[in-house]
């Protein structure tokens, strides 16, 4: 039921981060979970005090990816916008992505590629993030760029230590 699922994190070039993880499901289901808005809400856990207000995802070439979060202080507090540039159904998908604060101040931009390989009902997903520069890449790792995820992890920590 639970094969080796440990994620692999590597930095094969100066501007990339590669994340690999296997899932116990066929690629079409992993694809659907990754790119269907109501499914995405299940794993894009908002940080504490944040609520997802917009989640649109149209995984076709030229289709958009749009997320917004609100907090008690700001609406939106954070946004993510991107466009799909390459789509091979259930196999390979590439989109751009720009994260910004509610004020419009850009936090970071990257190109994200997802590749899916299914074997014996297990799907290995490989995410390749390409940043504009080495500094941007290192900054993303160092700061956890995606603040939502960072806070989300803290939230889990809180639950685990209760």
């Amino acid at each position, binding site marked *: 039921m639970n094969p080796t699922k440990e*994620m692999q*994190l590597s930095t094969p070039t100066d501007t990339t981060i590669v994340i690999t993880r296997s899932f116990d499901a066929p690629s079409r289901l992993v694809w659907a979970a990754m790119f269907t808005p109501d499914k995405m809400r299940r794993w894009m856990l908002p940080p504490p005090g944040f609520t997802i207000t917009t989640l649109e995802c149209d995984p076709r070439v030229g289709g958009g990816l749009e997320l917004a979060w609100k907090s008690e202080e700001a609406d939106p507090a954070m946004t993510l916008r991107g466009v799909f540039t390459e789509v091979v159904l259930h196999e390979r998908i590439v989109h751009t992505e720009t994260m910004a604060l509610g004020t419009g101040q850009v936090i970071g931009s990257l190109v994200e590629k997802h590749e899916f390989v299914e074997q014996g009902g297990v799907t290995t997903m490989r995410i390749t993030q390409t940043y504009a520069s080495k500094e941007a890449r290192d900054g993303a790792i160092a700061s956890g760029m995606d603040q939502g995820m960072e806070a989300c992890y803290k939230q889990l920590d809180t639950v685990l230590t209760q």
Partner: protein
Amino acid sequence: MVVDRSPRLDLVFHALAHPARRAIIRQLSGGERNLSELAAPLKMTFPAATKHVRVLEGARLVRRRVVGRQHLCRLDAAPLKEATSWTEQFRKNWEVRFEALDSLLDEMKSEEQPRTRRP
């Protein structure tokens, strides 16, 4: 909410980005060395090696003390640990997402089971 510990960590990552500086760190992990000792195995001029040591000093990975005419360098691994834990944080952030995906996929599989012949 905005993480501002990164400027210092950026210095650490920048310091680690050059193979010569990683070589210097490896050498220093064996103990204190003077600048000539550090420069020799790198097949580098003395000023070039000094430049790398300065970058490492800027990231607070290396401390330098002057004894007579010798510049003795030693490693301070504390910033390395901090950097590692932040990489670890990045990894854990993704792991949390993936665990949520695992349970979602389990649900999706059981939802479609009645409709497929998959065993």
